[in-house]
Structures are given as C-alpha cells and as structure tokens.
C-alpha cells in the first residue's frame, strides 16, 4: 500500500484523553497517551483489564464506545485528524482503510449469512473490488490463513466452523479490503492453547505478507512477544513504558512490567501423596447419547492439588460434574474417604455435599448479583452449620479476613467488587462449608496475571492451613506449574497421562502431552518461529 512519497508514519496519537460516564460520574479512561505507528509495523499493547487497552484500540480508529468521549488530543491517520472529522467521513475509513478483529468472533459474525459474503461485504460496498474479484481474493486469503478447504469454506455459515477457524475467518474479513491498519483486540484469548498457536501463526503470516500495520491488544505477554515489533505497557490509562519487543522482554525498566510475568515464576514444591480423599473408579459418562468420558480413573490425595489439564471438550469439566453429582456416571463409581458416594445429587446427604465444594471460572455468574457478600457467604454457614444472626456475622467477617478482605465488604453487591475480589468471595463461600475438597474449575483463567498470582497464593495458603484437597481444572500450563502436586492430562474424554508433576512434565511425553506443552507460548520472541519450524 505504501508509496515512497508517503510519510513513514501511518498513525499518530498525541496526548489523547478519553473519559467514560458510569455510576453518575465521569471517569478518566485514557489519561494522555502518545502513540506512533509506522507503516507495516505491529505494535503490541498490553495491560490488565481496565487499563484502557480496548478503548485505546478503538480510539485509534477514531471511534469511542457509547458513554465515552474524547476530551482532548489528536488522532492523525495518514494526515487526517480523525477527531475533527464527521461521523460520515470517519465511516469512509472504517472497514476499508482500517479494520478491526474482535475477541469473540462467534458474537461478531451474523449467523444468518454465509461467511464469504460477510468476508467481502465491506470491500464490495466500498467499491474496492468487484464481487467476483473479492470472492476470489477471499478464497486466496483463506488459503493464506491455513483454513481447511479454502475454496468452499466460505460457503458455510458461522456455526458450521470451529472457534479457531472463525477467528481466522474474521482476520480474512479484516484483510479483505487490504487495509493500512488492523486492530486486533484479544483475538486469541478465548481459544485453547493448541488452537491459539495456529491462529497466531496465520495472523502473523498474513500481516507480514501484505505489510499491514497492526495494533495487537492482549493481556498475555508471551503472545504479544510473538506478534509485535514494539510493545507498549498500559496501566490505569497511562503508559508505563514502551520499547522494542526484544529489549522489553530482556530488560523491562519498570517494576510494574516486571510484575506482569511474576506468575510464571510462581512454583509449588511438589509433595508426595498421603491418603486418598477422593477416587474416581473407571468412570464413563454421557450427555444423552454423546459419550464424553471413557473409563476415567483419578485419585485425589488429602491436602494436595491435582491439576486436570486439557483443551476444551476434553472432558475436564464433565469429570467435575460427575464428582459433584450433577451428572451421574453411566459406569463406575466415585469413592469419598473410601466410601461410595451416591451417584445422584439428590441422594447425597447434606454432610456429603458440605465436604465437596466448588469454585467457578466466572465469578460474575457464580454469585447471585442481587445478594450481598454477607448473604453469599452467610448462606452456607447457616445451611450447613446452623449459624444464625450474630454468630453468622462474626464467622462471615472471619472468613473475609481469611481471604484478605476486611469487614467493609460485607454489605457490597458482587457488582461492586473487582474481578479478583469476586473470586476471593467465591473462595470464602466454598471455605464457609469447611470442605475437604474444593473443585476449582478454571478459577484463574478469567483474571489478570497479577490477580491470578494473588488468588493462587491464597489457595496455597488455605491448603496448608486447613488441609484442603484441590481438584484444579485448567488449560493453562503455567498455572499448573504454580500450584499442582500431581497432573492429569485429558484428551477426548480419556486420561492420557497422570502422575507427579515432575514426572508428567519431563520427557518423554505421550503425543498429546507433547502437543499441549509445546503450544504454551513462551516469553521468547522466536518461540513461534522455532515451533513452526519444528512441526
């Protein structure tokens, strides 16, 4: 796209300030950020949630979400100040010279139209290409993005392809008008590690091939390391630091940047198992006719953590549902302290229910939004232990202190808590029942790196203090390294490998474990290149 007489700088943002309206007040979201992007360059933007990454990404297109407004600054795209342009003029740029790839491809496609029509719609509408030309180009793009059957995949509907394919199709859509700039907003966050690798490789390939400038927004440093030429770290709407990728990884200047990958250094010393609290004996289970678990054996020792890893659809969560009694197994049995546990939830005694507690991935939906923290934590105290009134309140406050929150939180609603605080309250609710086992279903995967570290440390401390066993379901290998004693690798409803962490994580690996382990991005800008060469 770039001609020699055009200037090298494609996008320049100067002292940009954006504020948003919520809770009856204006809040500053972006507090004066400068940004320069050259043609053909990829800039990575990282930060925790709430750092203003997405707002900045959208602002780069001259767009703000409803309820937000730009208060000052300049956004100069190829010589034009987008802020001073009318909505109509800006729309000439959108979907044409600048395009956007959203986090959830599934929510961004119209389910009623064929993929190829959606891929090419804006190109044809803007008159950049004829229909036949755009279709042919789209098929070439599908090929370049390593999609299966590139000639025909465009004739399918969004529900007929997988999540990873959809994310690549969206990249094809963004690439179709040959834009000067693509904004990628967390495009792989919702994907499994093994899928993420393919999508990352495809995106990087196509951005390089057409020499497109891109802004890549993510909270995962190791992902951005593969994609970006430069990295900008944001926090609370301000820039922490910006540097060339290799330099940033080798030598981060600021404390905050260093703390971003501290969770990766967290590692629990593995301990050998004592007595077994819970055992799954040759469990098979099915949803209706679809079998999802095949002959699964699993042992959970007392006061230890067993991590269950695998992609989505591997049966990890189904195993948890069998243990909790939500899904009675078709074969096999669950033993709790050596005794058979009734298969169905309604046949279990209150005492059996009390001893097995659960923490969920999305703390948002795991708590009733209309109940206060006191009701949420107080209910299991009342239900299992019969604590009422003042005794209930005292115990609730003690539990809050255990999870490092003070009593001022007691009357808050979940919506008034941060993501990490929500998850802590969920932990307190599980703890209130004095359980012997807590099943943690992806409890940290929706959280930022630093918050993750806090939660993991809290869980480890509680384990030591109260001798609780954790069944820790996750797809994140660095979390497994941080918390587990034993590891169970699952794939397609079967256990591929299990044993002590040190044994599972040292070669030789079964084929699937190998694939899973090698797909975890590393903090090395050459990791993806090397991996692709190896495969």
């Amino acid at each position, binding site marked *: 796209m770039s001609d020699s007489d055009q200037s090298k700088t494609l996008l320049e943002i100067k002292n940009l300030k954006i504020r948003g309206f919520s809770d009856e007040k204006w809040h500053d979201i972006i507090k004066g950020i400068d940004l320069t992007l050259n043609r053909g360059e990829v800039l990575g933007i990282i930060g925790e949630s709430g750092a203003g990454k997405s707002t900045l990404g959208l602002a780069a297109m001259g767009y703000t979400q409803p309820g937000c407004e730009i208060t000052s600054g300049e956004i100069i795209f190829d010589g034009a100040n987008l802020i001073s342009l009318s909505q109509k003029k800006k729309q000439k740029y959108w979907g044409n010279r600048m395009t956007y790839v959203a986090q959830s491809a599934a929510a961004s496609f119209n389910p009623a139209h064929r993929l190829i029509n959606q891929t090419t719609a804006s190109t044809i509408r803007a008159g950049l290409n004829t229909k036949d030309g755009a279709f042919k180009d789209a098929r070439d793009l599908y090929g370049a993005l390593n999609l299966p059957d590139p000639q025909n995949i465009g004739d399918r509907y969004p529900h007929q392809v997988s999540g990873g394919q959809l994310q690549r199709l969206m990249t094809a859509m963004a690439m179709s008008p040959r834009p000067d700039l693509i904004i990628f907003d967390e495009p792989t966050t919702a994907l499994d590690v093994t899928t993420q690798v393919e999508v990352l490789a495809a995106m990087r390939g196509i951005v390089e091939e057409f020499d497109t400038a891109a802004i890549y927004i993510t909270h995962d440093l190791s992902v951005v390391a593969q994609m970006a030429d430069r990295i900008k770290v944001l926090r609370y709407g301000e820039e922490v630091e910006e540097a060339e990728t290799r330099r940033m990884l080798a030598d981060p200047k600021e404390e905050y940047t260093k703390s971003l990958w501290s969770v990766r250094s967290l590692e629990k010393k593995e301990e050998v198992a004592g007595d077994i609290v819970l055992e799954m004996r040759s469990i098979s289970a099915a949803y209706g006719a679809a079998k999802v678990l095949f002959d699964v054996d699993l042992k959970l020792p007392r006061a230890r953590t067993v991590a269950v890893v695998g992609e989505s659809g591997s049966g990890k969560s189904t195993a948890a549902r069998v243990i909790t009694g939500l899904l009675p197994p078709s074969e096999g049995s669950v033993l709790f302290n050596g005794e058979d546990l009734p298969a169905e939830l309604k046949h279990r005694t209150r005492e059996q229910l009390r001893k097995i*507690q659960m923490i*969920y991935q999305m703390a948002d939906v795991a708590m009733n*939004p209309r109940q206060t923290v006191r009701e949420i934590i107080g209910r299991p105290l009342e239900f299992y232990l019969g604590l009422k009134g003042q005794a209930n309140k*005292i115990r609730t406050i003690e539990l809050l202190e255990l999870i490092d929150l003070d009593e001022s939180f007691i*009357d808050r609603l979940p919506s008034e808590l941060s993501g990490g605080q929500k998850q802590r309250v969920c932990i307190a609710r599980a703890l209130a029942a004095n359980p012997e086992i807590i099943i943690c279903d992806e409890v940290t995967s929706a959280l930022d790196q630093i918050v993750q570290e806090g939660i993991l440390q809290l869980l480890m401390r509680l384990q030591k203090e109260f001798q609780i066993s954790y069944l820790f379901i996750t797809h994140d290998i660095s979390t497994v390294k941080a918390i587990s004693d034993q590891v169970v690798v699952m794939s397609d409803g079967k256990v591929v490998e299990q044993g002590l962490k040190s044994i599972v994580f040292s070669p030789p690996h079964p084929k699937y474990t190998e694939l899973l382990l090698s797909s975890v991005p590393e903090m090395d800008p050459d990791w993806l290149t090397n991996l692709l060469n190896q495969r």
Partner: protein
Amino acid sequence: MIKSEPTDSSKVVIENNFEKRTFWNRAKLELKKSPGTARFGMIVILFYIIVALFAPWLAPYGESQVFPIPYEPWGQEFVFGTDQIGRDILSRMIFGARNTVGIAVATTLISFLIGGALGLAAAINRSWLDQVLSRCVDVLMAIPSLIFALVLLSIFGTSIVNLILIIAVLDATRVFRLTRAVSLNVVVMDFVEAARLRGEGLGWIMRREILPNILPPLIAEFGLRFCFVFLTIAGLSFLGVGIQPPLADWGSMVRETAMLIQFAQYDLKAGLTPLLPASAIALLTVAVNFVVDWFLHKTSGLRDE
C-alpha cells in the same frame, strides 16, 4: 478443619461507612432521575389510588343513591348530571375507581401469583412438569381470551369472585410464558448450580436465587398486564357480563350512557358524559404505560445518548 480464632466483641459491632442500599434509598435516587412522563404517570396513579381509597368521603352522593330526575344535565347540584335512573355520575365515577381498579389489581396479582410460580417451577424443573404446564398454557392461549371469558362467565355465573378468578387464570398464561422465558436465562447461571450443589430445595432456588433476578421484567409486565386486565374488565362490563349493577363501574357506565353521545349536536355537555368514564380508563392506562416505559428503559440498561 477450619478453626477460627476467638474474636473479641469490640470487633463485632461494626458500623460500616459503606452506604446501606436499602430499598428506599435506591427508590429515592431513581425517582430523582425519572423523566417527566414517568412523574406524570406516577402522580396520576397516586391520584387514582387516593380517589379509590377515600371514595365514600370524596363522593358528594352515595354509590347507588337514586334521585327523581334521570338524565339531569350538568349543573350545580349534579356536576356531571345523572344517569338513566337518576344516579349522580360524578359519585359513580369516584366509586367506580374503587371497584374497577380494585378488581383489576386483585386480578393481576392473582394471575402473577399463579403464572409466576408455575413459570419458575417449569423453568427450574425442565422435565415433564415443564412439558405438561407449557402444553396446557398453549391450549388456553389458543382460544381468544375475551370469548373464552364470556363462555366461562356464562357457565359459572357473573359474580365478582368468578370474574376475578377467570380473568386471572386466563392472564396467568401470559405471565407463565414470560416468567419461564426470563427464568431460563437465569437458571443456567453458575450461582443457581452452586445453590443446587449446596443442596438447596426448589422453594429456596425459586424465591432467593431466581426471583430477585427476574423481578424487573416481571414488574414491567405487571404494569402492562394490569392495563390489559383493566380493559378486559371494562370490556366485559360494557358487554354486560362484568361488574354487575348496582356496583358502579366505568365500563358499564360507558354502556349505560352511550346513546347520549348522539345528542352532542344539541347539548355538547350531555354528549361528553359517556366519554368521562371512558377517559378515566384511558388516562389510567396511559399513566401506567408511562411508568412502565420508564421502568423498562431503566432495566434494559440502555443509555441515553
């Protein structure tokens, strides 16, 4: 197992400075932000409630007090004149507020009680109970409700209790459908599963976990449903099978004075008489809808832009 340290009592008496979110505090805050239409609606509704409650003191004459002159024109003694047997129209309109609105509120409440409870149960249970209830509701909804109500009223007789129960049951079908639909979105949430895993019973899950989360659409529906019930009762009264004389009721008042409208060319005021109870119905319907609109807008999370 978890052991707690003994807590000293000073720690227990805590007054947190965090603002208590009582119902009234929140209501006050919301009222302050309400738009003009909603305020108008609320004032009108309040007016109707006062009139209904204090009818015997507000009305100049008794509900079915008959005076010797029928069709008395508007004037000093009878502000809106008298009807075909010489009853004061103004007094009957004031008492009509009590009867018509009172019966409509009772009917709507009962229909929400039935429809809401069954809808929640169906959404949580999802098995044979859901199937049985939903199919029954489908059958009931397949018959036009006004005609169905007419048939049932002629079978069971037109007493107030029958009227309330029949309309309540017929309208409960709509409430059932709405409750079931909005509950289904909540039932799949993890906190409901968490409650089930805790071992909570159906009653707790219905009342404490789901109901608070579906309340906004239900309250909005309550307003709309109230209007429909109100109109149905007025319609049935107009047809002569609703509220029976000598009870004052706006629907039957329209019917009884309907032919006066033909005299509008000779005496405008006389012509307006049947429109008075009709506009009383219309005004309340509009007022309720204003309030419901505001409420719906507020709970839908749409921002004013």
